[in-house]
């Protein structure tokens, strides 16, 4: 029911630009799966309730299927969450 905290491998370039590359999460069978982020469609800064975050809309490959997900990086707590779609 909530945004789900997830493990992420990301790269930071010399200008401080952040790019998530892989995410890892538990699937329905309780096995840890790693997915490569194929493409970042767009990203934007958010500041809801004064809490800064970066939102990344990206594509991952699940089997044969390309899936769009939203990842959020909380700048203060350094946490990544998988945004729950309503």
């Amino acid at each position, binding site marked *: 029911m*909530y*945004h789900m905290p997830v493990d992420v491998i990301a790269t930071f370039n010399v200008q401080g630009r952040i790019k998530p590359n892989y995410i890892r999460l538990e699937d329905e069978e309780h096995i840890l799966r790693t997915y490569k982020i194929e493409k970042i469609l767009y990203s934007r800064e958010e500041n*809801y*309730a*004064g*809490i800064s*975050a970066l939102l990344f809309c990206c594509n991952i490959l699940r089997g044969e299927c390309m899936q769009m997900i939203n990842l959020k990086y*909380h700048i203060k707590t350094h946490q990544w969450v998988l945004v729950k779609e309503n």
Partner: protein
Amino acid sequence: MDNLIFHIDVNSAFLSWEAVYRRHILGETTDLREIPSAVGGDIKKRHGIILAKSAPAKRYGIRTGDTISDAKNLCPQLVLVPPHYDLYDTCSKAFMEILREYSSRVEQYSVDEAFCDMTGTISIYGSAVVAANMIKDRIYNELGFTVNIGISTNKLLAKMASDFKKPNLVHTLFPEEIEMKMWKLPVEELFYVGHATKRKLHALGIHTIGELAKTDLNILRAHFKKYGEIIYAFANGIDLSVVAEEAAPNKGYGNSTTIAFDVDDEQVAKIVLLSLAETVCTRLRADSVMATVVAVRMVTHEFHHTSHQRTLLTATNTTNEIHKVACKLFDEMWDGTPLRKLGIHTSKIVSGDSLRQMNLFDMDRYEKFSKLDLAVDRIRDRYGVDSIMRAIFLNKHIYHMSGGIPPEKRKVKNKEGII
């Protein structure tokens, strides 16, 4: 050029902020603003009042300040969430930061309200209503909560305007609109008119702000003295105060605590007073000021309020000294009735570098105590408030620094979701 003042007020601030956090940061699907909900204290610890409520909760007749049990009676399905003051701080800061982008003169009036002096900004942001709508929408888009903006030529009228119809609206109340928009309102809606004044005004046959504005000033002076002149000016839309960027220095420092049990033991009450003195004096020392007047306030288990105060020979901010005075005041005032709430309030604040006047009757070693206090403050600064405490608080149910916001009400814990 006429002055142009905006008053910006967050709609049900604590509830809105709580809702935005749950919706956008935690990812909850339910929006607290759309269901009967309220932010309230902790019933178990008897801090049971409603601090903010949603619009649907308001429709059930729930008012801010109601006890939680009263609110639950009015609306059994009311969703109650505990307060988180650290979150409100973050929201408030982000809110003020946006306002400061539009005007160099911003006065933070409270955690969720501010005045902006927008005089002369017409060439930058367009006319007043356009500019206000732009600011209002930007706050909603970026921070996720709604505000009301009142526009006028002085602070009082702007504040009255922001209170008209909520939420998420801009209203004007220019001097030429006073008669039409403000005079028809009941007199208790006027800023500065509280419950007691309302009753006195009703007794004089004054029920609306318009009636107050047209009353002979001499009558008001006779009944209310100087205060009569103020409310008369306000009713006529006159307010000469300016938008003050810097907060005025505190006139007093006080803390109080509602105790989880009724206190009927003198020793226990004095320990509570010590924990309050500790908090108040830490704040005095942090601002490098000293207090000359100490007051003790108490509320009995039957909600009877009493207070008693004394002027000291010399100003102080030493915990032991304030505690000693508080205990004396307590002894003179208390008749043994069980107590639910105790408070210490200090006033007549003087700057801390004023020299201490020695006198013959100071028998205690205050200099050593004040050095000790400073050392304790530094330890707490570095290692946290709980890193050092007086041994008397060991194995007691009383927190060693009472009053203010307890640590558990500051941060949001994940398990506190509503779903």
